């Protein structure tokens, strides 16, 4: 009897040791939790299904998954890697200040309430971020990208997916070939600076910038054939430089009229600089 108990203890000890580095799950559900630094780095690979990352005010990292998949995890309190196999609905809770890196093939990526750095990559899934991360890089070929809330710096890239940037961001960059880009830039957060730097480019997709420009800010928009629409507050102080080689330019902000495909004017010194260039897309400028 004692020998049986000893063997059982050994088996349990070995199982516990295995569980330290690798969490094997049942068919439908798994959960794991580890202590984690407030600014720790978590790297997540989940090819299919869905990934939801949530920032919380707790110095720990918690993972739960649902669906026919399995989780492998390893790392320390400063960096941890999570690899999921199978099609899994994955939820990962991280400290708000964490650095998060996610890679997926078809899985959608949702991030909520993380203030650290986000590096999000998908081939075909969508990417949605809500919150005020310090730095966001989001790339997906076919899926849409939406950033809501604002960030210190954001770089977004798609091939055909639409891009929507909402909120009070300081430094924005977005690039797409055939998707659309919509920027709704508010100036009420992060000191109310408005966009200090913005670069938006598309080939065939339309680009719409609707929002406040930071004093001294620089906004550049380029398209090949997509239309460019700029809406700024009526009292905006800026130098505007608009050019479309084959398209039209419509100005409803001031009385200025385009000549030979170009319109350049200033509404006052020391303001922002707005540049729009298109090969054959139409450009419009109006007050919001």
């Amino acid at each position, binding site marked *: 009897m004692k020998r049986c108990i000893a063997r059982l203890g050994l088996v349990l000890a070995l199982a516990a040791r295995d569980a330290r*580095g*690798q969490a*094997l799950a049942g*068919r439908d559900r798994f959960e794991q939790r580890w202590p984690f630094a407030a600014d720790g*780095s978590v*790297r997540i690979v989940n*090819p*299919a299904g869905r990934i939801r990352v949530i920032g919380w005010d707790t110095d720990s990292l918690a993972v739960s998954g649902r669906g*026919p*998949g*399995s*989780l*492998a*995890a*390893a790392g*320390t309190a*400063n*960096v941890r*890697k999570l*690899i999921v*196999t*199978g*099609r899994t609905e994955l939820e990962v809770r991280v400290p708000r200040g964490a*650095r998060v*890196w996610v890679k997926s*093939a*078809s899985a959608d990526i949702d991030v909520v309430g993380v203030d650290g750095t986000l590096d999000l990559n998908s*081939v*075909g899934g969508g990417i949605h971020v809500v919150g005020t991360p310090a730095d966001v890089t989001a*790339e997906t*070929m*076919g899926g849409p990208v939406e950033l809501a809330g604002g960030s210190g710096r954001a770089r977004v*890239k798609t*091939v*055909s997916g639409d891009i929507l940037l909402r909120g009070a961001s300081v430094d924005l960059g977005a*690039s797409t*070939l*055939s998707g659309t880009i919509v920027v709704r830039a508010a100036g009420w957060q992060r000191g109310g600076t408005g966009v200090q730097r913005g670069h938006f*480019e598309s*080939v*065939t997709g339309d680009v719409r910038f609707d929002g406040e420009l930071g004093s001294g800010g620089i906004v550049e928009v*380029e398209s*090949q*054939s997509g239309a460019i629409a700029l809406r700024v507050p009526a009292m905006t102080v800026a130098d505007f430089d608009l*050019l479309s*080689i084959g398209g039209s330019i419509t100005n409803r902000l001031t009385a200025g009229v385009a000549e030979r495909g170009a319109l350049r004017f200033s509404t006052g010194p020391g303001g922002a600089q707005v540049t729009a*260039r*298109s*090969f*054959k897309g139409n450009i419009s400028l109006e007050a919001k």
Partner: protein
Amino acid sequence: MMCGDREVQLNEYVDGTLAADARALVETHLAQCAGCREAVAELRGLLVGARGLPRTIEPGSELWTGIAGRIGKRETRNGKRWGRGALAAAATLVIGFALYRLLPSSTVFSRPEGRGWVAVEAEYQQATGELAAAFATERGRLEPATVALLERNLGVIDAAIRESRDALARDPGNVELRGLFAAAARQKVELLRWATRAAT
């Protein structure tokens, strides 16, 4: 124990996402740091562990089948991957230099107009040709829908480049046209790089 400031870099090293120069620096560091070597071994063990996990469903997509297979082959494939990465980087340097030469500068205007343009075109064609060949080799690893999306958008960007090139042929001194052509060409290079990276 690994060096505190190396954690992310070591993960990227094991994941194979570091550029060649950064990778070389890490390898130099690993030769001198037992803690970081231990951390790398642990991270590699995780990849091996992931390979051994039970797969309760068969992935429905062609892409995931490829990824699952390569998790186990990462060690042996690194050389090939970095070769392609180096090719992409080299091609980018070439196209970057070519596009730089397209932009208005004293050096551009000091060259004979026609000859400079021909040289830039040749460099661009070579760079995109090499990247396109790399992508053609790897495209089978992507889902058909992704390949279709990429081909459709490569067609879009090619049409844009063609339009800009034709316009430049009519007005070769137009600085704005050069800028728009440069932007379209850069986007094509970036798309090919991205496609190749996604496939590998």
